[in-house]
């Protein structure tokens, strides 16, 4: 298996993912971790956590397509794309991309393209959980 693609409900196994993409044919490994950034809502309440929900069947299929498309564009040796669901504490990663390629430029480009495309397409939704326990679904485009 050259791709590790998974929607998972547990903390992201960062070290294992990096080990997974390591290869003696690789000159570079680019990794991106999307982490939960501290924030406050309009009432001044601090963010307590994020809740991620996925349409797991669709998201899994999308990850397969994403990996396929990335491999068409760059000489990827090994690839890991992991997205977490459930509650994610501040500062913790919710998404991980790790790509190994023969040369570093390709690793950076593929990694960047993967996270940008994933964020635009993947069937995952994020709810901000505030300190009083209330939640707000994140609307990426506007406020309804």
């Amino acid at each position: 298996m050259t791709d590790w693609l998974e929607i998972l409900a547990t903390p992201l196994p960062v070290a294992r993912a990096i080990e997974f993409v390591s290869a003696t044919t690789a000159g570079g490994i680019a990794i991106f971790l999307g982490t939960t950034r501290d924030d406050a809502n309009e009432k001044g309440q601090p963010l307590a956590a994020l809740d991620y929900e996925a349409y797991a069947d669709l998201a899994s299929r999308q990850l397969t397509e994403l990996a396929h498309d990335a491999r068409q564009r760059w000489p990827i040796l090994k690839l890991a794309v992991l997205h977490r669901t459930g509650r994610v504490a501040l500062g913790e990663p919710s998404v991980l991309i790790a790509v190994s390629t023969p040369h570093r430029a390709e690793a950076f480009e593929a990694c960047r393209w993967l996270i940008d495309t994933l964020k635009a397409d993947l069937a995952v939704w994020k709810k901000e959980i505030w300190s009083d326990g209330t939640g707000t679904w994140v609307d990426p485009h506007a406020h309804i």
Partner: protein
Amino acid sequence: MTITVKLFAILRDKAGVAELPLELPERATVATAVETLLARHPSLRPFANRIACAVNLSRVTGEAELKDQDELALLPPVSGG
């Protein structure tokens, strides 16, 4: 025919249900299914023009025809990562 509708994230919260069966005339389109659903759950109407649809895990447009037992998912704009 009967299809299964799945609702996610804010749509599920507003409708108060994650999955429901929907009776439709034979060869009804996705647009018809969505309109039928909005009539039953008016709380979803403010989101109508930004809902994407997938049938059996493939993205579809409103003109797509449905068949018995299809799984129609209503997807609000994604916000993962």
